[in-house]
């Protein structure tokens, strides 16, 4: 039994280890280890395409996480006091958002927005005063963040709502009995209790947006995110530079995960 567990762990970690080891390969060819070197890290970090893609990915992930965490939390709180058709509608939409494959979301968003922009842009041009260049709506950072926010917001609603459902109702009643205003109750009782869930939702949204390839592939327009860059490089062949980028990305996600764990644990011990 233990032997089995060890072999599954080997299965999980050998591929990651292979990438990390070969990222330090001094040889040009990815398949033979020629000696230790960090030159591919230098190459990757001084490659303007890589740095641009990284910047795009970080900005998109940060904006997505902020929007998803705030809009999702607001909706999750409001949904507690809502019943009837509105509640059913929201439940259905969240379910659909989570169920529909990312690739269908990607293509659907692409063709819908391209079609809508195709109508709106001539209208803007007609409305704009002569001489001035009218604004153009295009696929790009805005559409990327909008699409990522849609999906991750649904995840945040699910996570925060689960936390609210597990909350002790008597605390809210106690706060009301002690003459706290609704806003005071929210700020001093509800918010601290659901903060770990909001943070978890924020980090989940950030990671999702940062790692997502398929939705970005369709809706990012001329923007190149890091996964898009890596994917198109892989198509051209395996290089040590990609190994170095991959190792750095994995190390960064790992660090984020550790920080999140620590924050969450602190949040739990404080509230408990």
């Amino acid at each position, binding site marked *: *039994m*233990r032997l089995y*567990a060890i072999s*599954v*762990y080997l*299965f999980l970690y*050998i*591929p*990651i280890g*292979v*990438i990390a080891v070969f990222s330090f390969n001094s040889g040009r060819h990815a*398949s*033979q280890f020629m000696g230790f070197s960090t030159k591919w890290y230098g190459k990757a970090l001084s490659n303007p395409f890589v740095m641009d893609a990284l910047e795009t990915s970080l900005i998109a992930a940060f904006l997505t996480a902020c929007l998803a965490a705030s*809009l999702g939390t*607001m*909706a999750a*709180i*409001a*949904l507690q*006091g*809502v019943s009837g058709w*509105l509640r059913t509608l*929201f*439940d259905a*939409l*969240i*379910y659909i958002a989570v*169920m*529909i*494959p990312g*690739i*269908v*979301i990607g*293509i*659907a*968003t692409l*063709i*819908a927005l391209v*079609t*809508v922009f195709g109508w709106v842009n001539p209208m803007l041009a007609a409305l704009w005063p002569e001489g001035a260049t009218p604004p153009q709506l295009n696929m790009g950072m805005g559409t990327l963040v*909008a*699409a990522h926010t*849609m999906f991750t*917001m*649904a995840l945040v*609603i699910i996570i925060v709502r689960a936390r609210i459902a597990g909350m002790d109702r008597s605390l809210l009643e106690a706060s009301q009995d002690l003459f706290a205003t609704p806003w005071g109750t929210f700020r001093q009782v509800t918010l601290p209790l659901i903060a770990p869930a909001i943070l978890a939702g924020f980090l989940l949204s950030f990671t999702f947006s940062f*790692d997502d*390839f*398929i939705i970005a*592939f*369709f809706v990012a327009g001329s923007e190149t995110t890091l*996964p898009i860059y*890596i*994917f198109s490089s*892989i198509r051209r062949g*395996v290089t040590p530079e990609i190994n170095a980028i*991959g190792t750095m*990305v994995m190390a960064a*996600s*790992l660090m984020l995960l550790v920080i999140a764990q620590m924050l969450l644990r602190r949040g739990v011990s404080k509230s408990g």
Partner: protein
Amino acid sequence: MRQLRRNGVLLAPAGIWLLVMLVLPLVVVFIFSFGERGAAGGYVPALTLEQYANLPARWTAFKNTLILAPLGTLAALLIAYPLAYYLAVRCSPKWRTTLLILVIVPFWTSILIRSYAWIFILGGRGIPALLEMVGIDEVRLINTPFAVLVGIVYGYLPLMVFPIFVSLDKLDKRLLEASSDLGSTPLRTFWQVTLPLSVPGVATGCMLVFILLMGEFLIPAILGGGKVFFVGNALVDLFLQSRNWAFGSAVAMTLVFIMLVTVTVYMKFISRLGGQRDDISLM
């Protein structure tokens, strides 16, 4: 009344977002699937079932998906279950959290990079080179259904282990003692007590993995090398290469329809089997 207005204000942004970025796109795909392809690609409005009649042209993609998605789910289940069992029942509590985190960590790193790692291992100078040393020549692993299956199991194993672990962890260990006190063999205890009680976890894990696999694009694109392709790959091809929006929309609608039917039938089946519908729902 005031509270009602406050809730409305809080809900509005999320609601509008979902309407514009989810409902509108899906409605557009639905409408486009009844249209025609323009001469230079794109979409021409029409009301025809031509695109749906043309679906058999992409039969291979549907066939591959409908074979490899369930097969991949099953393979992941068979590998994940013993590990989840070990973590929940056998391993010492001291190590449990660490080992569990070690299962989840890979899932938090990019699936793109993790799939790419297998190009190394399965490619010409990886396992085939090792096999050559022991005298087995000409083994081709990369760009085969096997490579895609390995990628699938590797990518989604954590998602399968976790729900099964949760359901086994919740299981009252005294039931196992009771069973063995009453003279059951360990195998019989497992078969009659442990396994039935872990059905909700198995059902959740299988459904999560299956749903994600039905729309998979990256793993077949990276490890199938254009030879083993899923519906997802066909969709990328239709929208980005041949720019056939109408036919692509029909393929997308069909994929969603197949998923909805499978998941509904599956949920019905599981709820009859376990009788605990609450535990297996996604939310």
